[in-house]
């Protein structure tokens, strides 16, 4: 697949926004979907739909196989050890809650410490906050420096004999920081502390190899990886999933049920209660195939070039301040404009068909640390081009005009 005309694979780009071509720079929020994924949903609903697992009829057999194929693809995509380690959830937020809740039940008591970072998305903080409330756990925040990088030496110092779990993002959805999670996991494992990685932003932008990372848990949202909404993934080492208690309870996750007791299904079903987002999981297989047909290396290269181009151009605009300057950065760029609030930036850019996000991006702690109430964020996907960056920069110029700034 040729990366240069990849936009043609995404039907949304034939749409006009306020009469202008759509320049979609909100992929960290959710990515657009390629034709093959949309078509797969369509065919599945039109000619293959059935619930999975529970019925013997042909439609159900086919749907069950297709569902399983996605699980196998995900296993391969992230290099998991077995398909039992791949659990389908509704989003990364649920994946993290699943671990915080079940791990917490079993392993957290009053005074125990949970170590996270100042970069974390609310979805990788609130679930741990619940354990603070219910169990009296203590949450520590590993600090970042001015560039938006985790200070590893400080991180290490925050690990104590009471640290029970570490939860850290792989890629910041504000600064674009690529966190050296392998190094962190290595440090943690020497002290026998399990590590959860929030892979929400990394999954679409970085090659993921959970075996190489040796992480204990990894959370992904499929809608950010060119997949349908309504599906998330939890990777967890099999040992953990066998040891931890079940999470949501109901049909499909049980073994034997009597009035007195309940026993649970084997993996991965133990963690997949109720009817799954069947069609969406089936269609997500196409997202993986799509990325693989491009080649993860090519995708990374493309986004790297784009990011560097964008950084250079934005730096050359006087009124623009970039947020953070991390050592390793992916295609997520937050910025502010002197004299124009991010919400106003977003509105003015939208007038030119440029979709960015403004606000705290679900990272209030990070924004407080940076002493910024809000930022504007442009984030890239495989479909973005240098033209998009050029239009972004022109639209930024327009902010100054609208606000009568020099």
């Amino acid at each position, binding site marked *: 697949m040729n990366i240069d005309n990849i936009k043609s694979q995404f039907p949304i780009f034939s749409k006009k926004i306020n009469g202008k071509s759509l320049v979609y720079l909100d992929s960290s929020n959710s990515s657009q979907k390629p034709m093959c994924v949309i078509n797969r949903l369509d065919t599945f609903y039109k000619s293959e739909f059935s619930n999975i697992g529970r019925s013997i009829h042909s439609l159900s057999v086919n749907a069950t196989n297709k569902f399983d194929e996605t699980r196998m693809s995900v296993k391969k995509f992230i290099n998991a050890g077995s398909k039992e380690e791949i659990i389908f959830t509704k989003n990364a937020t649920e994946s993290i809650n699943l671990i915080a809740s079940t791990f917490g039940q079993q392993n957290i008591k009053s005074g125990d410490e949970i170590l996270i970072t100042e970069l974390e998305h609310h979805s990788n903080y609130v679930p741990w906050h619940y354990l603070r409330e219910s169990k009296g756990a203590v949450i520590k925040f590993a600090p970042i420096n001015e560039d938006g990088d985790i200070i590893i030496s400080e991180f290490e110092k925050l690990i104590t004999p009471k640290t029970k779990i570490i939860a850290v993002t792989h890629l910041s959805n504000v600064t674009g920081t690529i966190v050296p999670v392998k190094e962190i996991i290595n440090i943690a494992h020497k002290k026998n502390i399990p590590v959860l990685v929030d892979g929400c932003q990394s999954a679409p932008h970085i090659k993921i190899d959970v075996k190489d990372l040796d992480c204990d848990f990894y959370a992904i949202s499929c809608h950010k990886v060119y997949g349908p909404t309504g599906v998330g993934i939890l990777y967890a080492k099999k040992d953990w999933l066998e040891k931890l208690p079940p999470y949501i309870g109901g049909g499909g996750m049980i073994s034997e049920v009597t009035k007195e007791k309940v026993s649970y299904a084997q993996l991965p079903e133990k963690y997949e209660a109720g009817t799954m987002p069947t069609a969406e999981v089936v269609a997500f297989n196409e997202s993986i195939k799509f990325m693989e047909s491009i080649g993860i290396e090519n995708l990374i290269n493309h986004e790297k070039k784009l990011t560097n181009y964008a950084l250079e151009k934005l730096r050359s605009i006087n009124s623009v301040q970039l947020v953070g300057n991390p050592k390793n950065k992916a295609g997520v760029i937050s910025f502010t404009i002197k004299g124009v609030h991010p*919400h106003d930036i977003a509105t*003015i850019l939208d007038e030119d068909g440029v979709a960015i996000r403004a*606000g705290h991006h679900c990272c209030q702690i990070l924004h407080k640390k940076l002493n910024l109430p809000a930022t504007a964020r442009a984030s890239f996907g495989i479909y973005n081009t240098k033209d998009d960056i050029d239009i972004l920069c022109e639209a930024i110029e327009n902010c100054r005009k*609208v606000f009568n700034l020099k």
Partner: protein
Amino acid sequence: MDLKELYQDIILEHGKSPRNFGKCKNYNHQARGHNPLCGDQVHVYLKLDKEKKVEQLTFEGSGCAISIASTSIMTELVKGKSFKASMEIIDGFLNMIKGGSEVKSNDLTEDQKIKIMSLSGVKQYPMRIKCATLSWHTLISAMENKDKDVNTEI
């Protein structure tokens, strides 16, 4: 949609140099407003006199041009008004922003009416309506002495 309608000079000017900014002395009512989606904050300080007239009205907070300008204009228009007149102005404004007709009030001068209508461009921008209305809701809360923080979902 027209950006010039939204960002009229008067809005930009109030956004840049808000009136009645800060904490007024001797306030006897106050309320905090917050937009959880974007992080906008406003804190309204209000002094009602014995007849419940708005003697003082100031604010602190951070937000976009629309939000700051709207708050600034609000303090200008409501300060000095009776409780009833204040509530009528607030209702008139919220109604106008939600698509209603222009604000009618015997308590506003023509100049003030032009000022309040300068915010009407927001109507065209549904995602920005909360920016414009947050402080007004917060003011109601302060006047009614509700013991609750306001957020824009209301």
